[in-house]
Structures are given as C-alpha cells and as structure tokens.
C-alpha cells in the first residue's frame, strides 16, 4: 500500500463526512453515467493476481517482491523483475529487503540490484520502504544509487528484485 492508497483511503472517509456518501457517489455516478467512458470498479487491482506460489504482476508496484523498493521497475523498461534491460549492466552489489510472499507465507531476502548505463527509464516508478534504513546502514538503504562502483558507473536506469534466499528468522 503506497501513500496514495493511504491518503485516499483517509480522504474518501473525510469526503464522505463532508457530504453524505450517497450524494458524493451519486454525483460521481451521474457524471460517469453521462459518458460511460471509464468503468467505476477499480479493475486495475484485480488483474493477474492468481494464487500461485509467486503471485502477482511483476510490472505492478504491488508485487510482493517490491516491498522495499525505490525506483523504476525493470519489468516496464525492457528487462524483467530479475534481469536488466538490453544495453544496461546490473550493479554487482546493492541493498536487500525482506518481503513476505503471500503465495507460501514465507519471508524472502530480496536483493534490489540496479540496472545501470542508460538514463532513468521513467516508467513504473515504485516507492515502498518496508525495512528501509538510513544510508549510513547501506546494506538496507534504498536511497543510495547502487550503480556506484559498477562498470557503467552511476547512470541509473531501473531496479530489479532478485530472490537470494529465505529468511527463516523473520
């Protein structure tokens, strides 16, 4: 859940207080009915979430492996959630997070290696910060450009989410 979700969850409640929920929804409904351009249901939340042991859509910020990410999803940039786009190079080291996989209810250690050597992809920006730490604790810090030190230097393109193990302690 991102700050937008949280904000609107809260704001929707506020709006419902300001005006009765019926009239707000009625107003929205009237407008939508007037055009029928967009569906009222939040369909974007449902698609692709079959229950498997690795559930979810790797090109969506909601995907479980992205629990500690801060960057552009390589899945939207010519790469995948575990591979860099053509023309870029994966940073050798990076920060790690620990994410709960709803498919098997286990915690996995995720390495968020950056892909480097092309400028910022700019697609599917995703900021989630579970367990993120200040940059003086770099092993858990997503505010650092981890392209530093790689052969493509600090030109940041996108971020991956690679399983490096199961966290039995979590």
């Amino acid at each position, binding site marked *: 859940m991102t700050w937008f979700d949280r904000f609107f969850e809260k704001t929707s409640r506020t709006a419902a207080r300001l005006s009765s929920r019926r009239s707000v929804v009625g107003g929205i409904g009237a*407008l*939508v009915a*007037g*055009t029928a*351009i*967009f569906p009222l249901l939040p369909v974007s939340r449902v698609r692709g979430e079959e229950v498997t*042991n*690795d559930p979810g859509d790797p090109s969506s910020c909601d995907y479980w492996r992205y629990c500690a990410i801060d960057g552009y999803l390589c899945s*939207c*940039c*010519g*790469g*995948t959630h*575990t*591979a*860099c*786009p*053509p*023309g*870029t*190079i*994966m940073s*050798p080291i990076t920060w790690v997070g620990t994410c709960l*996989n709803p*498919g*098997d209810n*286990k915690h*996995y*250690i995720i*390495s968020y*290696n950056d*892909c480097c050597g*092309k*400028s*910022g*992809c*700019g*697609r*599917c920006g995703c900021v989630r910060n579970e367990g993120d730490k200040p940059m003086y604790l770099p092993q858990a810090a997503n505010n650092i450009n981890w392209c530093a030190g790689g052969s493509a230097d600090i030109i940041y393109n996108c971020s991956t989410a*690679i*399983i*490096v*193990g*199961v966290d039995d302690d979590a």
Partner: protein
Amino acid sequence: MLKRPLLALLAALTFPGAAFSADLPEDPMGEVVTFSRQDHDRLVWVTDMNMPHQAHGRGYLIDPDTGAFLAMLDLGYWTTGIELPSDGARILSAETHFSRTTRGERSDVLVTYDAKTFQPLGEISIPPKRASVVKMQGTSALSDDDRFFAQMNFTPAVSLTLIDMDRNEFVAEIDTPGCPNVFGGGDRHFHLLCGDGTFLTLTFNDEGAVLNKERSDTLFDPFEDPISISGVRSGTHWYFVSLAGDLYDIEMDAEGVRLAATWPLISPDERQDEWSISGFQHLAIHRPSNKLYLLTHQGPPETFEDPGTHVWVFDLATQAKSDGYELAERTISIAVSQDDAPLLYGIGAHIPMPLLAQIWIYLTEGEAPLIETVQFGLDVYDAEDGSYQRTISQLGHLPSMIQPW
C-alpha cells in the same frame, strides 16, 4: 546465503509433489535480457527530445503488438532523431554533448549503436554545428546504400556535414545557404529543401567529393503556402503536404528533383470548414498498398501544428480520399507499418483523467492545470479502420518521431 535456496530447489526437483510448498528458488544474478529482432513481428522506434530536459534526448524501442517497451538509447542534448540502416544491425545518431552536461566544451559526434546490445560501437567527430530543431524530419539522411550519412547544420549559417560510414570518417562540410533540410534519394545524391521553393541536389563520388550541385525549378510557393518538412518516401517519390493541405508528389533521383504531381488533400469545402494539417509528423505512407495517411483536425491556419484528431486515407494511384477515421487520442505524429495488415502508430497527448474530469477542471480552472498533466504515449491502431489497439505510455516529455523498424 546461496546454499539454502539451492537445496530447496533440489528438493523441489527431487520431490515434485512437494514443489508447491518448497521455497521459491534463488534467482540468477547479473542477468541482462537479450534482444533479438526475430522475436518480434513488428518493431517501432520513438524518438524524444525530452523538452525541457534536452540533455536526456532518447530513443525508445517498442513492440507494437505486445505493447512491450524493449530498450532505449541515450541520444545526447536536443536529439533530432536516429537513422536506421537497412541491415537492421546498426542505429546511427548524430549527437551533441557538453563537457559539463549543459555547459562547457561542445562535442558533436556521429554514434553507431549495435542494434542488438544497444551499446555504442564507435563514434566519428563531426563539426559542432548540428542543428537543434523541434521537428526531426529532414535533419539527417542516409544514402540509399547506407554508405553516406548527411547531417543538417545551423549556426545559423546553413551547411551539410557528410560522413562516410564505410571508412568511419567525416568527409566534408558543404555550404548549402538557404537549403537546410536534407532528404535521401540515390546512392550518391542528397536533396536539400530551399527557402525559395526549389531543391538543391548534391551529387558526390565514392570519396564523398561533391561533383555537382543542381538547383531544381521552383516547385512550390514558399510565401503563399510552404510545404511542411515532414515528407514520406516511396521509391524515388517523396510526398509533402503544404500548410494549407495540398499534396506535392516530388521525384528525387540522380537527375535532380521534379514535381510529379500536386493535388489537394484538403478540399476547398473542407478548408472552409477549417480542416487543417496537424502535429509534427502528419503524413504516413503504406508502400505495399500505395496509401497515404494524413493527420488532420479542425482549426484556423495557425493551428497547423496542433494535435490531430482524425486520420484521412488517400489512394495515391487515384488521388482520391478512400477512408477516414477519428483517433482515440489527440495525436502529434503518425506512422504506418509496412506489412499486409498494417498498424497505424500515433503519439498521443494523453491527459490521465476521464474526459468529464478534464472538462470540469477546464471550466473551473482553465487549461493550465490540464496542459501540465499531458503525457505522451505511443498509441497503436489498426491502420485499416482506425480501431484502437493499445497504448505504450510514459514515453518521456516530447516524443515526436516514429520510425517503423
């Protein structure tokens, strides 16, 4: 840290019944997606000057059938696009870079990129005079055999840089006063569009030495109704449209440049109704069927660069309008794939909110908040009937050129 997942993977392989409850395997580290043209039925490049962040000029490679964003190139300060040699193995880009990003010493280079790894294979230094202009068509050209690259210069003196791609060297800067935009047509010829309504044909030899400069007749009236620089080509014919909507079928070859035909794409009646050309890249051509596509909208003459709302289809053989449809999005550029079931590509100016929300904001706050939310994406349509297929969104700040590949 490595051993546990490997064991889990082994366990999963050994006891397949337990696979679902076994740990997910460790992922390989350091992988990079390998691009292969053979994996795609169709491909398209979109080039973006990324205004106001011109140091991030970029090219985006897209599979229009899957909607996948495949790869990108960084093209330096204020790109005016890429050239695509017919071998499909290279991408050529004339670029400008500064030693301090947006200040300091300027270097202009012609970069060759590997079309599989998207890494630079090499670069050739060229005079630091490359033109930076908003519309990308006519700013560079390749000879038909892909050997010579021609680059438009503007300092504001006008000249042409000639580069030999076989020898990997800058050949010459040729003064071409009054004739900035360059078009291909022949192995040893380039054709330049001049401000007096003529074309200038440069003929050169295998060493790149200019043998002849031939000036065409006056082919159009640059003061009454100039042609747009956004031409499309089929064989020796280039098709241009004037600002008022007349088509100019212009033949360019070793003999020079001649007007083959001219006829209105927008009829007098339609002009009365203020139908106008639109956007940046307003013509597209489907060579197998000899069909021409015009991006259009309704508005007074000064709106010739506004986004288009409709596409009109013409049969070049009969000069007749055969079809037309409304686009799903306001569109600044179009192109068409060259296969038997062609796609029409459009760069759409998307406002990420429902139309009635847009109208509401427009009525209450004016256009400024809406303009600030415009985002450009590549819209894919069926070229036959204009039916909307999909959008590849989030393509930078001012993508404007579409090149099927």
